[in-house]
């Protein structure tokens, strides 16, 4: 395990300390060491936007704290849901009096902890509503969409939800926009190597050299197919072919295409894959309104990529276009 850590049981603590030091203009601590918030939170009279999840997915989750983005994040151990208390404290840190939109991913632990945190918040009179991201196509058939995992589509859900909240919208409006974002979004991942949780010390699944796993999850959850390692163009085609029919996307659609590395894949290769993705979308009459290529949602030092495509309407376009300032996404309108 070639890793730069101290005590493997304290990687999250150490990382959080460094993160706060590196981004003092964006984030700050709260009373709960497992909750960070945007320096501006709670923004009075704005719906609070909260997320949370296990660590090891940088920039997710704390990397999306910021202006017009997420207000507070509950932080879990590596690949493990934050506690109910952390979600609850994140709700309190984010609540500016208009309620809280908790936008998170569909994992058993997160579902349970969020459910209980909502009960705790209700006692304080804080209204919390949720959107549960389930953009990962390979994790369940379309007829059981509620079983699908949330993956990099969460980034677009936060972008949209954060922008909507900043527009002064009500909690129901924020929830509706974020829900629309995730309903219009489909993702798929391809893994090329496993990864190692520091406290565990060895990979807890394998991908043999020369092989790849189509449909793998962000924690190494099983995919739909293990094949010989394909070329970048073939991988692009496999991903596009799996997700386009699922929504379905079609001729004339304008989309966001987000191609994220899983951590250890050189960014050079993300552009090689994106080159083909864009070409394949164009061939189907789908135009990329806004591309995001980079490491947006990773899995420690896993090699591989995830492709996320979101179909846009006028509202989503304007929300995607809004300025944003966070470690993971910083964008400004052209002067």
């Amino acid at each position, binding site marked *: 395990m070639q890793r730069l850590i101290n005590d493997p049981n304290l990687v999250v603590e150490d990382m959080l300390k460094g993160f706060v030091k590196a981004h003092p203009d964006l984030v700050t601590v709260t009373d709960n060491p497992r909750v960070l918030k945007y320096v501006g939170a709670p923004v009075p009279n704005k719906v609070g936007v909260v997320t949370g999840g296990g660590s090891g997915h940088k920039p997710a989750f704390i990397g999306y704290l910021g202006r017009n983005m997420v207000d507070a994040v509950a932080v879990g151990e590596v690949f493990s849901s934050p506690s109910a208390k952390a979600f609850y404290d994140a709700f309190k840190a984010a609540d500016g009096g208009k309620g809280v939109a908790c936008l998170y991913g569909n994992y058993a632990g997160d579902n349970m902890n969020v459910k209980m945190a909502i009960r705790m918040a209700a006692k304080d009179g804080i209204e919390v509503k949720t959107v549960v991201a389930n953009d990962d196509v390979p994790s369940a058939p379309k007829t059981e969409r509620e079983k699908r995992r949330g993956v990099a589509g969460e980034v677009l859900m936060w972008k949209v939800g954060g922008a909507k909240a900043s527009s002064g919208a009500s909690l129901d409006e924020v929830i509706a926009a974020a829900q629309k974002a995730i309903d219009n979004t489909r993702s798929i991942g391809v893994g090329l190597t496993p990864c190692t949780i520091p406290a*565990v010390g060895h990979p807890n699944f394998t991908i043999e050299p020369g092989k790849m796993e189509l449909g793998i999850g962000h924690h190494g959850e099983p995919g739909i197919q293990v094949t010989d390692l394909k070329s970048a163009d073939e991988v692009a085609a496999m991903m596009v072919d799996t997700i386009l029919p699922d929504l379905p996307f079609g001729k004339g659609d304008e989309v966001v295409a987000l191609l994220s590395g899983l951590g250890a894949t050189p960014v050079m290769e993300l552009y090689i894959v994106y080159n083909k993705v864009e070409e394949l979308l164009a061939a189907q009459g789908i135009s990329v309104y806004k591309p995001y290529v980079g490491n947006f949602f990773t899995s420690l030092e896993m090699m591989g990529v995830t492709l996320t495509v979101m179909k846009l309407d006028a509202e989503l376009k304007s929300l995607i276009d809004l300025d944003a300032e966070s470690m993971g996404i910083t964008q400004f309108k052209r002067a």
Partner: protein
Amino acid sequence: MSESFSSSEGRTIVLALIRAIQDNAAYLSDIDGAIGDGDHGINMNKGFTLAEKNLSGGPVALADALDGLGDTLLTDIGGSMGPLYGMFFQEMGGACRGEETITPQVFQAMLTAGLEAIQSLGDAKVGDKTLIDTLVPAREAFAASVGAGDDFATALQKMADAAERGKESTRDLVAKIGRASRLGERSRGHLDPGATSCWILLRALAEASRGLLGA
């Protein structure tokens, strides 16, 4: 040998649970290493050891002690185990709140409340290779034994034995839920870590209770 014990013995019972997890932490991580990510013992030990710190010094009502243990797990552990075991102990505590003594009937209500809490949170069924495979037969054995007129201590022993058989049953199962489900057929032949920790907890609970009954 008595047919109930005082509900003020919360400290005794919960300390026994904590020791059981501490003593078996490495074993539980080893089991998890075979089909999971090898951290089950680490996770559980972290939570239970923290609960020990939060346990006050003097005698504590069983309801409060169990509730406190559940609280710590819920607050500090996260993951799936935090809420599952957290709610399990909170609901067990709730089911004996206000009782002066713990009778077989109260104990049965506690088991039922704990099991239902876990079932309402997770989606696991018997046969999915989870702690449910330990908990369901354990509760049934206790209820059957009490129904058949056995004394409290015997029913507790039968509960622990059934928990052990339930735990052992997971060896031949294919995991349907959680991390081990990744392995499919390869998960067969290994114990489920959660089922094993659940057996260790129920065994400790039975032994401590039997001690208080003078058995």
